[in-house]
């Protein structure tokens, strides 16, 4: 079996990112693009571009049958789903399996296993991976009992949720009945699955995730962790590796937990096991597994030198793991800033439009993953990610300096971006110290507000 042609079922920077690796590997690319993206940079770089539908994602990028038909008709051997859109839709993996196409990702059964958050939690427990105190609740009685046991503040989480969606915080036990009712109704409406579970709310938490690669037969390696605690409303803004201030022992344990979890699933392809680090208790809990390549994967690539998309393709092609854990070397620190078309002066409102001029940094140790050039159109139909600026340095301070410089050299005209906001965060002393928790950005926004008024 050999992959010679890949259909890319995505857009933007990740489509270009996949095309880049395919070019290196000599694999032909077919881009499935919406009408709005026919003139995009990925469309120019792909060997062939097929127009799959109008701009609206539900009529193009989310149309599973159309994507698979396009792959079959274009005689592609495999589909790369990127992130978002259909990447974690078990139905796409299943349809590929049925049609004899290679899905560059995990099996449909694995996507199902991690997509159901309660099942993933149960798998984690079986694998001996720590989970936050809590569990499934079917009745209000059960919820009250469990709520009393783990003590508020609590989180009610939707089984079908994830990535910060479908969560409710409850501070007092007497508020639990009303919150349960609301959460169940909302989960049913939003995810078509009314099931919820309870978890302890961790007041001071960090988001640390571990990159893994699995061969599908129980062989799993990890490629270190990423700290993604700088978030605004559960949207990651800055990611880095290694996670600052963790002890060597803690780091080893969290890596091992991720490997154990992926081994338990006999996970295939690249995936990320997310953990919540309870800063006060010095513990970590399994959160969820993302069965796809992630936006922030380049920081891992920057310190390991591994092309994760290349490894995804190799695994999908039946070559298994080409890397051995003991041969992996982690070189220094890497930071990524997500440059979004959103206006920090107007509560981060999306700012679509035409980029009249774009200038990206190009210093040593700087990588820019972007689909934006001067003249690019930022469509209101898609997410606001314009670019990811990734820097690497021998240590965190060096990487931080490089990032400040890189942000200063970047210029995007014509639309509002969060560049000035990044510059502010990077200059902040709390961030510079490192190891901030997930509420850092909210605090930062509060204390900087008076300055702006």
């Amino acid at each position, binding site marked *: 079996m050999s992959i010679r042609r890949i259909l890319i079922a995505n857009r933007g920077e990740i489509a270009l990112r996949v095309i880049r690796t395919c070019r290196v590997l000599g694999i032909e690319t077919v881009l499935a693009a919406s*009408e709005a993206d026919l003139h995009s940079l990925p469309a120019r770089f792909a060997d062939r571009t097929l*127009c*799959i539908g109008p701009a609206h994602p539900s009529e193009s990028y989310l149309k599973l049958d*159309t994507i698979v*038909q396009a792959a079959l008709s274009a005689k592609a051997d495999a589909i790369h789903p990127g992130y978002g859109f259909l990447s974690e839709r078990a139905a796409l993996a299943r*349809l590929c399996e049925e049609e004899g196409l290679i899905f560059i990702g995990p099996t449909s059964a694995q996507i199902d296993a991690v997509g159901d958050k309660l099942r993933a939690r149960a798998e984690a427990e079986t694998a001996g991976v720590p989970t936050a105190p809590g569990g499934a609740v079917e009745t209000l009685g059960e919820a009250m009992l469990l709520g009393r046991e783990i003590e508020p503040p609590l989180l009610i989480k939707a089984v079908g949720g994830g990535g910060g969606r479908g969560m409710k915080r409850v501070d007092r036990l007497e508020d639990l009945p009303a919150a349960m009712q609301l959460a169940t109704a909302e989960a049913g409406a939003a995810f078509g699955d009314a099931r919820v579970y309870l978890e302890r709310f961790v007041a001071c938490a960090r988001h640390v995730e571990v990159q893994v690669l699995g061969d599908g037969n129980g062989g799993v390696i990890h490629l270190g962790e990423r700290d993604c605690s700088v978030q605004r409303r559960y949207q990651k803004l800055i990611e880095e590796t290694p996670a600052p201030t963790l002890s060597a022992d803690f780091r080893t344990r969290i890596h091992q937990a991720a490997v154990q979890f992926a081994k338990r699933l006999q996970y295939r392809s690249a995936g990320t096991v997310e953990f919540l680090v309870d800063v006060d208790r010095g513990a970590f809990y399994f959160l969820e597994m993302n069965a796809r390549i992630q936006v922030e994967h380049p920081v891992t690539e920057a310190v390991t030198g591994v092309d994760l998309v290349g490894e995804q393709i190799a695994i999908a092609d039946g070559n298994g793991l080409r890397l051995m854990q003991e041969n992996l070397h982690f070189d220094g620190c890497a930071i990524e800033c997500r440059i979004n078309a959103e206006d920090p002066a107007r509560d981060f409102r999306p700012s679509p439009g035409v*980029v*009249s001029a774009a200038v990206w940094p190009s210093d040593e140790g700087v990588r820019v993953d972007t689909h934006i050039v*001067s003249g690019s159109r930022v469509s209101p139909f898609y997410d606001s990610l314009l670019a990811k600026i990734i820097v690497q340095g021998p240590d965190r301070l060096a990487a931080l300096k490089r990032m400040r410089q890189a942000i200063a050299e970047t210029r995007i005209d014509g639309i509002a971006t969060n560049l000035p906001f990044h510059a502010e965060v990077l200059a902040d002393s709390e961030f510079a110290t490192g190891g901030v928790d997930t509420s850092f950005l909210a605090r930062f926004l509060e204390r900087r507000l008076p300055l702006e008024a």
Partner: protein
Amino acid sequence: MSLTAKDVAEILRLLEESSFDSLSLEINGMKLNLQRGSATRTQQVRELATAAAPVAAASPPARPKAKPPSEPGLADVPSPLLGVFYRAPKPGEPPFVQPGCKVEPETVIGIIEVMKLMNSVRAGVTGEVAEILAENGALVEYGEILLRVRPEA
């Protein structure tokens, strides 16, 4: 040096007399953007920007390719979906339409198969089929022109 109102007026006059449609000027951190005719502004910004960026200047991929119409005034019937185009209801049967056929908006002109699901394509216009572009059994993209109709006056 900085720009005074008089300077701006002078620049405006120069632009007015020139053959250019827009002007961007940057002096000591001060930016001046002038544009002639607001209706075409976006297009001009794009053209200017692409001219400045070699990568963007590369010619964009053509909209699903189509041969030019054989006569003026023909109406395009574009594909509503990406899929496999069939001219006939079943293999071996006569095609839905041939050049010269009269069509109305609801007339079925072909089928597009998407993963074994057959979708009827309707003409969407009243007139006479002038030319058929899409081949039977071929992959057609969204928006690709399937056939052209000589609209009824």
